[in-house]
Structure formats: structure tokens, C-alpha cells
């Protein structure tokens, strides 16, 4: 820990409150968001606003807390034993951490796609797609079929699987499985979709397809994507946040962050001097 602190001092880390941005239509906003595992503080107070109907990329080196950050946004972080969250996450004016908010209901409005494709192994492609609906009590067959097709189309998977909907979801290739997971997240009709390095386990061709679907999705959803891959952030995101050692270093339009970063650390990271 001391080693990291020393490094922080050397690089002249700015105070987290310095990121002041104002986007009038923020869908989600975090206020002094802190997260910890037991005694280790992973996030040290993050203030961020995610504009509606846009793709925001969250970048940062391994272990900087970006995955923890996005897992705080749908209250999945707190499911890990010993994990704690402080601060506020405000969606549409409501703090999702206030005691009268049901985390289960919040997770239906904020979907998530994980790092590794994780289709339910006992379910068919179709059942995987509508799993969230079925498990939440939707029985109407017509509605289920409709939403399944729509979600699979939005995930750019429909044409590849429309004749094999009854095959097991695990029979698909890695990239197809990940798009199936995207479709599964979309089927419950969330407003925000969180993606935690969705392409890190995929080859370039599969990555391109997932990226294609992400870009198409932003007209209906607010997308927040954690990525390791700077080219990916540059390709698909409208806004970029750079997190380092649990603090927000920089946030802005992707083009600005990449072309003229305000912070020395961001510049070093983007130019590959560390990371």
C-alpha cells in the first residue's frame, strides 16, 4: 500500500473533486462514491455524470478500481462478502443507495454484461435471451418471443441464431455467447447498460461485432463500458473517464481526452508510458 501511495505522490495526482463537468442530461451521476473490500479502499470518492443516450468509456490500468466502480452502479458490488459502498449513485434524481430503494428493482433498470460470456449453461439460446423476463414472472408467450427477437436483433445476433433458438447457449462461439449475453441484458428493457470489459475474452473479429452492436445501442440506452483497450474507447465512446488508483483523473469528450488530455497522467497512460 505504501508503495502505491508513494507512486501517487510522485505523479502528482490531482484531487478527485477537480473534475467539474456539466452535462445537462445526466442519466446517472455518482457523488463521492467510495467502495471498499474489508479494509482496502478501492474507490476513493468518485464524482461523475453519465450523459443519456451515449457511450461512456471507463479506462484505467489493471487494479485501478474501474470494474469495482461499474459494479457499484447496479449494486452488484455489495453482493461480495465484505464489500461496502459509501456515497451516492443518482439515477433520474433518485439515489439508488437510499434505504427505501430495492436493489433488485434497480438491477432491472440497469443491466450488465460481464467480462467473460456467461450464458446459463442449462438453457437454450431462446431461454437465455428471455431468462430475465421468465425469472421475473413474464409468462406471455407472444411477448416473450417478440422481446427475444428484438433483443437478439439489437445484439446483432438474430441472423446467426434464428434457426437454432433451441440449441444450448453454450454451443455458440465465444463472441456469439457474448452477444447473447448482451441480448439477455437488453431483454428486460433496462435504461442503462453496464459493460465490464465485454471484449477482453474475444478475438478481433468478434470484438468488431460486439462494438458494432454497442454503437447501435446508444440510441435506446445509456451505455457505460469499462475497457482496457484504448483503441476501443476511442472507436466507440462519446465520453471517456480515466480512473487511476481509485480516483477519477480526467473526464471529458473522448476526442478531447485523447487529443489534448488535460492531465499529465492521462497523457502518459494514453501514450503507453504506463498502464
Amino acid at each position, binding site marked *: 500500500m505504501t508503495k502505491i501511495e508513494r507512486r501517487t505522490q510522485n505523479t502528482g495526482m490531482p484531487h478527485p473533486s477537480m473534475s467539474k463537468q456539466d452535462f445537462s442530461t445526466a442519466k446517472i451521476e455518482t457523488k463521492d462514491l467510495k467502495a471498499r473490500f474489508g479494509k482496502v479502499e478501492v474507490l476513493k470518492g468518485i464524482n461523475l455524470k453519465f450523459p443519456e443516450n451515449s457511450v461512456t468509456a471507463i479506462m484505467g490500468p489493471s487494479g485501478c478500481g474501474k470494474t469495482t466502480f461499474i459494479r457499484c452502479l*447496479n449494486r*452488484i458490488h455489495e*453482493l461480495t*462478502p*465484505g464489500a461496502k459502498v459509501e456515497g451516492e449513485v443518482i439515477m433520474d434524481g433518485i439515489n439508488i443507495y437510499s434505504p427505501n430503494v430495492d436493489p*433488485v*428493482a*434497480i*438491477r*432491472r*433498470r440497469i*443491466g*450488465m454484461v*460481464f467480462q*467473460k460470456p*456467461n450464458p*446459463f*449453461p*442449462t438453457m437454450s439460446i431462446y431461454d437465455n435471451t428471455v*431468462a*430475465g423476463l421468465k*425469472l*421475473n414472472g413474464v409468462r406471455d408467450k407472444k411477448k416473450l418471443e417478440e422481446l427475444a427477437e428484438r433483443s437478439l436483433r439489437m445484439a446483432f445476433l438474430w441472423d446467426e441464431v434464428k434457426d437454432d433458438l433451441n440449441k*444450448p447457449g*453454450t*454451443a455458440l462461439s465465444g463472441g456469439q455467447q457474448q452477444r447473447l*449475453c448482451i441480448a*439477455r*441484458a437488453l431483454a*428486460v428493457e433496462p435504461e442503462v447498460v453496464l459493460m465490464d470489459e465485454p471484449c477482453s475474452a474475444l478475438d478481433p473479429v468478434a470484438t468488431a461485432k460486439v462494438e458494432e452492436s454497442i454503437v447501435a445501442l446508444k440510441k435506446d440506452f445509456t451505455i457505460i463500458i469499462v475497457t482496457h483497450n484504448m483503441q476501443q474507447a476511442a472507436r466507440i465512446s462519446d465520453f471517456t473517464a480515466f480512473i487511476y488508483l481509485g480516483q477519477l483523473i480526467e473526464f471529458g469528450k473522448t476526442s478531447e481526452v485523447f487529443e489534448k488530455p488535460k492531465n499529465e497522467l492521462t497523457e502518459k497512460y494514453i501514450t503507453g508510458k504506463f498502464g
Partner: protein
Amino acid sequence: MKSILPTQISLWRKIVNKLMTILVIVAVALAVIPLIFILGDVLLRGAAAVNLTFLTSLPAAPTSKNGGIASPLVGSFTMVGLASLFSIPIGVGAGMFFSEYSWSKLSTVSGFMNDVLTGFPSMVLGLFVFVVIVLTTKSFSAFAGAVALSFVMIPIIARTTDESLKLVPNTLREASMALGVPRWKTTFRIVVGTGKTGVLTGIILAVARATGETAPLILTAFWSTHYATNLFNQPIGSLTYLIYLYGTSGASNWETQAWGAALILILIMLALNLFVKVIIGRSLTEARMG
């Protein structure tokens, strides 16, 4: 650069290698040969007694050659069935708790106690049920026998459930929770749904174990040659008790019938174990297709 490892295997190492191989083969033979002898012996002696009338007639006096095992067979099925009714929900429920709340102290402590119960002498379990149920109801009964058997089954089911649910990747739990599925539904539908092969295997192995138990029944179900008309106030026979009773009787007719009953019991065990193999085999093929 010359390798520091010798390029040729020395004669000594070749000899040691051969020797170890032979030792392992001897160990396997020592483990398997008794089993083959037991199976062969039961098959040879039992086959002489087994026929349709043996299966369908009631036990008879030691002087009769025509006694059967119908009522004890039904008794065994009744008690194992009842015990399954008690122990499957409790065992699977406990296993779910051990696996899904493994971080809690209560889960660790009760998991440890469950392990102790697994190794508990089944005679003592029978004695406990004798004191608690038989003395209170003032009667041996199928119910008391079933309770004793469920004490044998619960820890097995709980532990195998726990272990097979722990194998379900955490990412699936998270995927389900992230869809806004409540925790209990995630556990029942996704976690148990994914680990159901293991859970089912544990249940069948527990059933097999209970079917083969004698000690817990001696003080609880006791013995009867008739069909039980009431499960709560009359003793009931079982296959294992019959084998114990007839086998130690010294009467040659009964001894032959004990061998026959042993053969039937072993066939039931074999069938249950084969069933487990089929289930596991099928789920493996599914996994490979996937």
C-alpha cells in the same frame, strides 16, 4: 550446453519403475478381489433362493422352504421412501445454505456438525430415535425407522448438494442477479438448476446408503413378518433386518433365504449406482455438446 539431466535412464530406475507398477497393481487386486468374491458368493448362494414366489410371498417359519421376502421388501421401500420425503428437502435446503452462505459463521459451524453427523455410528442414531420416538409413542414404527434413516441421509445429501452448488461459477449467480432476479430465485432456478446433476447424484447415493442400513432400524422399526397397515403404531420388517435375523438363525431354510434377500439388496444397490452413472454420463455428454 550439456544438459545436467542424464540422457539415459539407469537400470536402477527402470527396476524401481517396474516395482512400483507391480505394487500398484497388487494394491488394486487386493481391493477388488474381495468384492468379486463377495458378489460371486452372494450370486451363487442367493440365486438358488430367488424366484417369483420368493419375491411375492410373506416370510414363513424356519421349517418352511417357501418363505419369501415380500413384506420386508415393501417395508424397506416404505421406510426409505418416507425417509427421502423427510431428508431430501431438509438436506438440499441445508446444502443450499452451506454453499450460498458459506461466508457466514452459522454455515461454517453447521457444516462442521453436518460432517460429524455423516460419520456418526448409525446404531447411535437409532438409539436416539428409540428414546425420542419409540419410547414416547410406545411402539416401534415405520415412522421411527424412517426418521432414523433420514438422519443417515440428510448429511450425505447436504454435503453433496453443497459441493455441487459450489461448483456452479459465481458469474452465473451474478448474471442472474444483474437481471434483477431476487436472490432466492437465483439460488433455486439458476444455481440449483445448473448443479442439479450433482444434487440428484447425492440424493440417489443417500437412498442407496439408507437402503443398506440395518443398525438404525433395529431399535426403531424392529421386525414384522406382515405388511404394516399403520406407519405409526406397529413394527415393520426390512430387507436388511431379515438378512441379520435369518443369517444368524442357524436354520438352513432361513439361511438360504437370507442369501436370496442379500442378492436382491445388492441388485437394488447396483441399479441405483448404475442410475447415477447414467445421469453423470448423460450430463457429461451434454456438457461436451455444449
